[in-house]
């Protein structure tokens, strides 16, 4: 019932904005500056919403795009030199700390459109103190354990609901002659972050501590548990025989041929990179949580979302907020994301394309989804460094504790190089 009222209010707001926009066409238009990465601003849905806004309201958007490689630097200089934009696009990751969020951006918890955000999208855009930093307006996918449902059915087996069941499932599959998990150990940096996400997403205080260098991976038992599980799984043959050389381009064939039954990936991958050159197609796959011994019930990783933030020190704060409200209007975002393959950021989003796999697992996803945390929020984190440490574990050059130590060393070295507070050399 509440949702219906909210939808009604949003519709009224949109109508008002439209009315205002029509009025603005008379010549009293506002010009807003939007700063973002060149590649981000050029996304089709971004261009659509910008165009729609200008057309509908008669206002102007001055786009200040920077090349990806120089974006962080140029944007920081703009804020430092008093040349900040009205609207600023950025992912909620560690780099955002360079922009003094509390000083420069408006918290948006009180905006009308907040309730229309999906829980995961809202969580992604919220800081540790519960402040909503921006409007998520982006494409995303659901990362989890995608398994070959057809094979499991043929074996009279069912997907796991707990870590213990997942281990049994892997064990039985291995005994039966399958490679339970396709683990692309060669440079595929996303794999370990699925295990790390629950650790830090469920404990923001721990995230802050590690980002202030007050704690290390080695002092977090869950990290060691994860590494130990990965090591044991590899030894038990759950990753198959060639996991160290298996890379990005090998995953599709492993799954399509049925050699491997499961992998940790995201749904859009099946539509962008998966080539069914074997017996199995995307229709044969389903989604269950990732189990890496860091969440008993498993977890999904939410998408990394680009959000639009409002410069609280600008002279067009109200107009900027109106722009966000315009973007958060169902008609507008549905128009912008029409035909785009993505998980919804808005509850009213219905023109985007969502995979059957995610749709079927919707309940489990919404229950067990964690905000993407490790890669985006841990200062100095590098998936490549973690993969390198794991490879030395796989090769026997180091043990579990040594692997964790290597992960810490590379992270601390990177954070120090970035000049992060609390790290050596800062």
């Amino acid at each position, binding site marked *: 019932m509440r949702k219906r009222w909210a939808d009604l209010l949003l519709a009224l707001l949109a109508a008002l904005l439209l009315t205002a926009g029509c009025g603005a066409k008379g010549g009293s238009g506002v010009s807003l500056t939007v700063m973002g990465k060149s590649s981000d601003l050029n996304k089709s849905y971004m261009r659509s919403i910008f165009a729609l806004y200008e057309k509908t309201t008669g206002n102007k958007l001055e786009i200040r795009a920077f090349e990806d490689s120089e974006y962080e630097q140029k944007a920081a200089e703009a804020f430092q030199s008093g040349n900040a934009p009205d609207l600023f696009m950025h992912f909620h990751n560690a780099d955002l700390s360079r922009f003094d969020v509390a000083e420069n951006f408006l918290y948006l918890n009180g905006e009308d459109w907040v309730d229309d955000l999906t829980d995961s999208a809202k969580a992604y855009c919220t800081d540790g103190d519960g402040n909503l930093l921006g409007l998520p307006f982006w494409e995303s996918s659901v990362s989890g354990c995608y398994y070959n449902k057809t094979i499991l059915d043929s074996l009279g087996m069912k997907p796991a609901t*707990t870590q213990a069941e997942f281990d*049994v499932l892997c064990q039985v599959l291995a005994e039966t002659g399958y490679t339970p998990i396709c683990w692309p150990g060669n440079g595929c940096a996303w794999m370990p972050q699925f295990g790390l996400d629950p650790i830090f997403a469920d404990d923001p205080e721990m995230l802050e501590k590690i980002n202030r260098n007050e704690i290390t991976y080695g002092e977090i038992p869950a990290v060691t548990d994860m590494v130990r599980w990965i090591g044991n799984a590899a030894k038990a043959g759950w990753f198959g025989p060639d996991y160290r050389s298996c890379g990005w381009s090998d995953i599709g064939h492993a799954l399509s041929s049925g050699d491997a039954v499961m992998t940790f990936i995201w749904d859009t991958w099946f539509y962008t990179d998966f080539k069914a050159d074997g017996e199995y197609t995307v229709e044969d796959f389903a989604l269950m949580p990732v189990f890496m011994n860091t969440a008993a019930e498993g977890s999904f990783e939410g998408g990394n979302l680009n959000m639009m933030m409002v410069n609280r020190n600008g002279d067009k704060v109200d107009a900027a907020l109106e722009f966000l409200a315009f973007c958060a209007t169902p008609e507008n975002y549905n128009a912008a994301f029409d035909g785009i393959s993505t998980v919804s950021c808005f509850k009213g989003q219905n023109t985007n394309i969502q995979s059957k796999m995610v749709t079927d697992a919707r309940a489990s996803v919404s229950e067990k989804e964690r905000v993407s945390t490790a890669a985006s929020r841990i200062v100095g984190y590098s998936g490549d460094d973690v993969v390198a440490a794991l490879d030395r574990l796989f090769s026997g050059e180091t043990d579990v504790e040594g692997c964790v130590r290597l992960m810490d060393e590379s992270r601390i070295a990177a954070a120090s190089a970035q000049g992060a507070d609390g790290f050596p050399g800062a």
Partner: protein
Amino acid sequence: MKTRLRKILPFLLVCAAFAIAILIGTFYFNFISRQIYEDSTRYLGEIYGQVNRAFGTFVERNWGLLDGWGEYLSVTGNGGTDSEVAEYLEGKRRFWGFSDFYFLSGDGDALTVEGEEETLDLGEETWAALLEKREPVMAGEKRANGQEITVFAAPAEPGAYEGFAYEAIAVSYTNADMASSLNVDAFAGKAKCFVIRTDGSVLLSTQSGGSVFENYLVYLKAASDLSDAVLEKIQKDWLDGASGTVQCRIGDVDHCVLYQPVGYQDFYLLSSVPQSAASAGFLSVQQITTNVLIVIFLLVGAAVIALLAMRSYAQSRKSRTELQYRERMFDVLSNNVDDIFIMLDAADQQVDYISPNLERLLGIPLEEARRDIRVMEKCAVNYNVVIPKAELEAIPLNENRLWECEYMHQNTGERRWYRMTVYHMELQGVRKYVIVLSDRTQERQMNQKLQDALTAARSANEAKSNFLSNMSHDIRTPMNAIVGFSTLLEKDADQPEKVREYTRKITASSHHLLSLINDVLDMSKIESGKTSLNVDRFSLPELLEKLNIILMPQAAAKNQTLTVHVQGAPPEQMIGDKLRLNQILINLLSNAVKYTPEGGKIDFTVSELPQTAPQYVKLRFTVRDNGIGMSEEFQKKVFAPFSREINSVTNKIQGTGLGMAITKNLVDLMGGIIQVQSKPGEGSVFTVEMSFVLPEQEETDAWYRQKVTRMLVADDEQEICLDIEELMRGSGVRLTCVTDGAAAVEAAVQAHRRGEDYHVILLDWKMPGMDGVEAARKIREQLQTDVPILVLTSYDWTEIETEARAAGINAFLAKPFFVSSFWHTLKPLFLKTAEQKVDAPVEARVMEGRLFLVAEDNELNAEILTEMLDMEGARCELAVNGREAVERFTSSAPGHFDMILMDVQMPVMNGYEATRAIRASAHPEAKTVPIVAMTANTFAEDVRNALDAGMDGHLAKPIDMNAVREPVGRLLRRKDGEA
């Protein structure tokens, strides 16, 4: 065939034994495995029968409890409160450990003790059995939170709890709790145990993590190797309520699957155990048995192998020993022969064997050759021993190829010739190349020697022909003159002037012919190796003085300047063959005079060269002239016999062409070297270098003993003064040198006035201004002293001797200045007893009135000698052989013969024998009568032989009376003295 069979029989027996052992083992293991399978199956059946009974007991207990609690509820439901019921049931839950207690309504709803409504999806059949048939039931259920539970339900007396009307009651257990009650620890946790329905669907699983199976029959169909027939039988068993056991393979592990009906409804207890786990106990026994058998088998096998190995080792050792013996023998053999043996592997040309004499014969270290046979390439002169692979491979099996090779020893450079034979053969199935390098060096050298000898013989023949040709020419030339002028002499005998002219020319031709014959004989003697050196002590000054005497007139005759220089301070006394050295130097100087035009200049220099050994002195004799010189081409053959440069000048000069050849041979004989530098029209320089032994040093303090401490020397050549000063150094005599006669007079006068008269004055003869003789005269006039005054000259002083002696000259000294000559000349003057002998006059008529016994078989020679003696005023008696000479002498009266002139080569008795006979005779003058050899045998050994035979001297034919007078006169005077 039998031998071959005997050889392989042990191997066949061992193989057969192994085959039998393997067969027995296989049979045994199959038997044991079957037994183990049956026992383990029986064991599994017993285990899971107990589990099944335990599960049945668990089910029965729960149903029994539910019956009991149902009765309680029916009793208390009439008077008890819900809270009392709840408390009662909570107590039971704590005691019995179930999860929840449910009140079940007739329409399938459930109410927990806590009053929460739930829906239990037990299935229509179950509900019907419970509510309609009023039977106790058991069913699986999955809660909304995903938790799987097992529900036990039993009909109860209808009642109500918290307003909820129920007809049955139930308890639930989580599957984890259920599993723990069914878990079997006997198989190390590797067993899976399920409660399933007859369609295979899983009610609960004992796996600790939970069940991941929905239908185990589907799993078996998909994952195991069970055939459809077996699967159908399993399903039929389940429908029939039968138990069973099947063995299957899941993945790569053998499993034992056992199923038994639970006994309630259609539930089955199904267990799946890896065969290895099920049979672990049996397998350990089997393993032990197997291990024992393997150990026994291995021990027996090891014993057999050891036996065979020992036998093989013994045989191998014997073979090895034999091989070592053979190799050693072969090494010794090859070390003692000059043939080299090599064996190469045909595949890669690696060395299998190489005989150790390689290093001795070619200087190649054996290890180097073993590593790479191509090191022999370094020694190859005309062929590469490492034959290219293609050439080796071209040799058919069991055939061979030959090559001739020449090698040079790496260290000594010695060349050796080999015949290389390469055999391509197969040894024990491996192809080899056996290379035999057969030494052909001696054969080759022999051939070479024969070839050389043939060449030499041809050369000798050619030389002989050339020699005869040359000799014919050179002898006929003077002979032609002799014959021709003799004819003219006869014709013009009445014309004294012509007779003298012809006689002079005949004499000149005769002398030339004689010198030719002497040279030829010398050359022949030298070349035949019969020339020996007559080594004795001699005086270098004397030798040079005589040379000066001989050659100075020749040079003066051509108005040439012959200058003798002595450089350095060569010792005066040395040991060597004076005559040969004299001959060498005369040859060189004569040639210089001969081939230097009138008025030319000849320098003869003697210089001492550095010598490392103190007992030797090395001298260089240099003869330099500014004569006609020689072409470069002729210089190359100047020392070859009969070599004379043919040009307009030399054609007019008489010569045999043997002088330089003889000189060269003599120099070689004396261990010296001779060199020549010359340019046509500019002159020649001949250099002879040779060493002489130094005699023991004599005491040389004679000057001091004679109180000679001051000496005046006058010579216009400053160099000569310096030479004399140098030579006199160490004698204790202080020299005053002046360069002209007047200065000499002044110096002598001044010394006299000071009371320091010179003890010796030495004046050069020819000096500008006042010469030596005049200076001597002045000194004698002014000083009235008897100080010895000597004249130093390189000229013949005979023409001035009388004048010089009248002027007060005491003696003459020939240049170059030698201390010893000086001393020997001076010494008599000091002693005042020696005869004044400058050059004793020859006794011209020494033979006058003497009677000679002449032993000469040649009538012509006898006649000539008779005439010559007659010319000297002597007489002679002739004997035609040695015997006759002996007889004449022994029969003669003492003093009858003054001397015997003995030919050597005579018939009947030669001269030596005759001399010995005379000396051995009883004649009173047998020992004293002078006997002089008179022979054409003119070599040194001929002289020695003559003296050895007892003769007193040696005269060479043809007889030259000028040369005869002196020795004959000396001997006659000796005889006279003795008499």
